């Protein structure tokens, strides 16, 4: 379960202060598929990164499975991200020197899994996203949609309970975008992974159980 309590996030740029999130409270249950929607600059990504423990709130609390993340050390936060959270970004962020398989292996390398187990699981995950045949390709030998599917496989490497997606289809054409979204939806339905999807594309709201709308750092209406 994810819980945010009165979260404020301010960025300082010189003497200016940007309020990216201005008192956000929300709860996301296990197994839910939640879409966070809002115009560009409304604070969606900021919210997602706070949930993903990539950043800390200026004030307020972020609780993951009831644990107050502000009380965790950098090392503990790293372990939390590694074991519980999978990230999918708009720009995929694959490591260009590594093959698809090796990219998927990477989170397991950081976890310290032995090589044969890593490889077996990475192969299975690539099969799952339909890239079993292209496992030895480097990112630049894959299309955008394929790269995003590799990124999904990587996000699943350590069997996270939460999948955080920041505009996963933002760089993709409609068809590839649908394939990616279908995979994410399937993971949610079949494996019960909690999905938080950030997007400004209204057509994606159909995938979600619930839509949270955000504007100027505030939740405007949660249905």
């Amino acid at each position, binding site marked *: 379960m994810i819980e945010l309590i009165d979260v404020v996030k301010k960025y300082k740029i010189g003497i200016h202060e940007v309020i990216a999130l201005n008192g956000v409270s929300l709860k996301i249950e296990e197994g839910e598929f939640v879409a966070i929607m809002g115009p560009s600059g409304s604070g969606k990504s900021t919210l997602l990164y706070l949930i993903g423990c*990539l950043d800390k709130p200026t004030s307020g609390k972020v609780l993951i499975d009831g644990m107050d993340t502000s009380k965790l050390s950098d090392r503990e936060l790293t372990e939390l*991200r590694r074991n519980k959270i999978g990230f999918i970004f708009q720009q995929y962020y694959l490591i260009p020197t590594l093959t698809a398989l090796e990219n998927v292996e990477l*989170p397991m390398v950081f976890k310290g899994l032995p090589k044969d187990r890593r490889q077996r699981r990475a192969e299975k995950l690539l099969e799952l996203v339909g890239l079993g045949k292209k496992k030895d390709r480097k990112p630049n030998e894959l299309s955008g949609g394929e790269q995003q599917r590799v990124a999904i496989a990587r996000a699943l490497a*350590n069997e996270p309970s939460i999948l955080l997606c920041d505009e996963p289809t933002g760089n993709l054409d409609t068809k590839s975008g649908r394939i990616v979204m279908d995979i994410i939806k399937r993971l949610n339905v079949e494996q019960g992974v909690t999905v938080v999807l950030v997007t400004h594309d209204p057509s994606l709201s159909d995938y979600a159980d619930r839509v949270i709308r955000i504007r100027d750092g505030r939740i405007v209406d949660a249905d």
Partner: protein
Amino acid sequence: MLIELALRNLARTKVRSVLAIIGIIIGVMAISSIGIFGESLKAVILENFKDVADEVIITPDYTHGYTSIDARTVKKIENLPYAELVIPVKSESALVEHKDRKTYVTVYGMDVKKTKELFELEKGTYKGCLMGSKVAEFFKLRLGSKITVAGKEFRVSGIIKEGARFDINPNYAVILPLRNFDRLFNKDYSMVIVKVEDIDKIEAFKEAVNKVVNRKESKVSVFEMKIIIERIKEVFGKMTLFLMAIAGVSLLVAGISILNIMLMSTIERTKEIGLMRAIGAYRETILKLFLTEALILGLVGSFIGGALSFLGGYSIDMLILKTAKYVLTPSSVLYVILGISFGILTALLSAMYPAWKASKLEPIEALRYE
């Protein structure tokens, strides 16, 4: 996998990596080659003195007013323990003439049987009057040539091979048998050269001299050749280190270039670093990744440089010393190991700051970095 990742990162910027490696190679080569040369130079010089290491020279204690050593004292010295060979020497500066040339030379008188312990001959025999090579050259002497020493005529029976000693300079010496010397000059001994049984017994022998000869007052001083040799070693060791330090500047340059490429690398790979942190890499993991890359550069460069420095040492030795005899000695290997260590250390030290900087990146800022 970390090593694999590091290798691929290095391969990604091949030209840069190769240049960094070349920098290290040159640095290590410069240090180690000069180390080898310094060591060879020392060896070449010490070779001349290898026979005198176990020698002790006893001279009159001038500070106490003694200008010579009398026969009684020499007798005492001859009976001291640890003295294997005792060579009392008399000396006097005298006019030496041959045909129309003349010059002042130091003339030594010593027991004919013992001269062969101190000098090697180029030609002739030890029996009779021996000429230093420079003296022979000056007078254009041959075996059997007639020369006049302090007004008395002698025949040259041997010419001493060129060499070096601290007590008697053999190249400029004229050596006479003691009884001939005594006929020319009425003098006591000016020094006593003693070969001690064993280098380790030199201290004990010195003590014996002080106990027996210098008991009442200090009549003689004792110099160990060993000390001079040790001083030479020390001076040449320092000189080698100094030269190596100068050569080390090239390693410094290599280090700065590694620092530079690693900094570039952290900036170029900011997003990757952020991503790795996001999916579960510890700060230390990032630190290790960058240090591993530097270590690979350092290892490859240092070992190639180390191997090539034998070639470098050989070239310098051949060029300056005209001998390659001392290129492959244990101490040369030591200098090569030293160079290799410095190469690896330089690479690691220069990567320290970039690696630390990379590991300090906040994942979120790294990912948002444009």
